[in-house]
């Protein structure tokens, strides 16, 4: 039976958050939340009404072995970015570069050479009034796209930018990344890297925080540009 039309829906949402909904009844409710959007919507309303902020005073550091156990049991190593794409690596690299500077090495001379050697600009994205806003450059191995904003564009507090690939062969836009800021580095899966070729386009839309809820652009497309090489 569909729960969305059940007169007890509010009592079920309340009991779920309160903890008095138990056993098979709770499992039925959880299934309905996944399967019936109206039930999810109602629970969301209850969550926003009945979610006072927990006091951080009640927090306790978990045992050190806790994370290690999750890492092993869930085989999380499979989902780790390779070392050279991790933020930690780039941070360490930045630190090393700073140290090199301190040591008197002329990093200023070195960096532009390194950068141009490793990245090739493939598109410039324009706004509707033809103002160039964003430069997109691809790494030589085609696995990383670097976005650089020529002009500052700030998203609202409840918004994200989403980068889309409009394939050369047509078809639905493919989401490449959800961005907090337009200056970003995006890791490209091999399957999508191949599609970044002449005839395809890149576009940026404004989406709710966290990105498009539907998998297709829902907000206004603010920037678009052809891939040139």
């Amino acid at each position, binding site marked *: 039976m569909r729960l969305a039309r059940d007169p007890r829906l509010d*009592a079920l949402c309340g009991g779920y958050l309160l903890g008095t909904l138990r056993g098979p009844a709770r499992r039925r409710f959880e299934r309905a939340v996944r399967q019936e959007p109206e039930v999810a919507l109602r629970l*969301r309303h209850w969550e926003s*009404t009945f*979610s*006072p*902020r927990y006091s951080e005073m009640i927090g306790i550091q978990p045992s050190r072995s806790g994370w290690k156990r999750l890492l092993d049991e869930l085989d999380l190593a499979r989902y780790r970015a390779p070392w050279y794409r991790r933020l930690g690596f780039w941070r360490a690299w930045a630190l090393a570069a700073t140290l090199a500077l301190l040591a008197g090495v002329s990093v200023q001379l070195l960096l532009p050479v390194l950068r141009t050697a490793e990245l090739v600009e493939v598109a410039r994205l324009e706004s509707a009034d033809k103002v160039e806003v964003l430069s997109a450059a691809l790494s030589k191995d085609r696995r990383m796209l670097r976005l650089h904003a020529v002009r500052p564009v700030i998203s609202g507090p409840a918004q994200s930018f989403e980068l889309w690939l409009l394939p050369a062969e047509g078809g639905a836009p493919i989401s490449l990344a959800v961005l907090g800021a337009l200056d970003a580095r995006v890791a490209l899966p091999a399957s999508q890297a191949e599609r970044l070729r002449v005839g395809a386009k890149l576009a940026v839309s404004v989406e709710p925080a966290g990105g498009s809820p539907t998998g297709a652009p829902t907000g206004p497309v603010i920037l678009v540009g052809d891939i040139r090489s």
Partner: protein
Amino acid sequence: MLDNRELKRLILSTALRGEGSAEAFETLYRMCAPLLLGVALRLVRRRELAEEILHDSFTRIWRSAESLDPMSTQPLAWMVAIVRNRAIDVLESHDVSRVDALDASAADEALDQLFDWSPGPEHDLDLQRAARLLRDCLAGLQAAERQSLVLAYAHGMSHRDLAAHLKKPLGTVKGWIRRGLGNLRECVERCTEPAR
């Protein structure tokens, strides 16, 4: 202060199951595990059980990250519900005493220990308002309704536990909970509607 927008981003990255999902999940764990462990410990009151509940809950968060409602603005509430429900299952299957050293007048104080009612960061204005309304509406409930709700929430009591603890028939207690929740919702909705 846990930022719901950041938590949502991390949960969505976790759900992608791509490169970097493990890092997002680890950040989520580092940010939320202490609070969630505290939530579990408040309910089961035994450290080793609370650690198990935390482990089971993060396993569930990893496995069902894609089921987070994409429009949710309260991912922390989603995680808290997972932890609380796991803790309640453990309470039901273990012989954990919940009613020791608990007197009725302490019930209201329990909520003040659990929650931070003070004004939060600016971007949480709606949340602040909701929290204040909730507290005011709770205070406006009949004493028996309020006490049952607080005992159920703060101590993970089932209808049966409540009936035993309050020495009232099961049906009476169920009625308090049902009416308490209904009145609370009506009060909050009545107070928010004119502002919409």
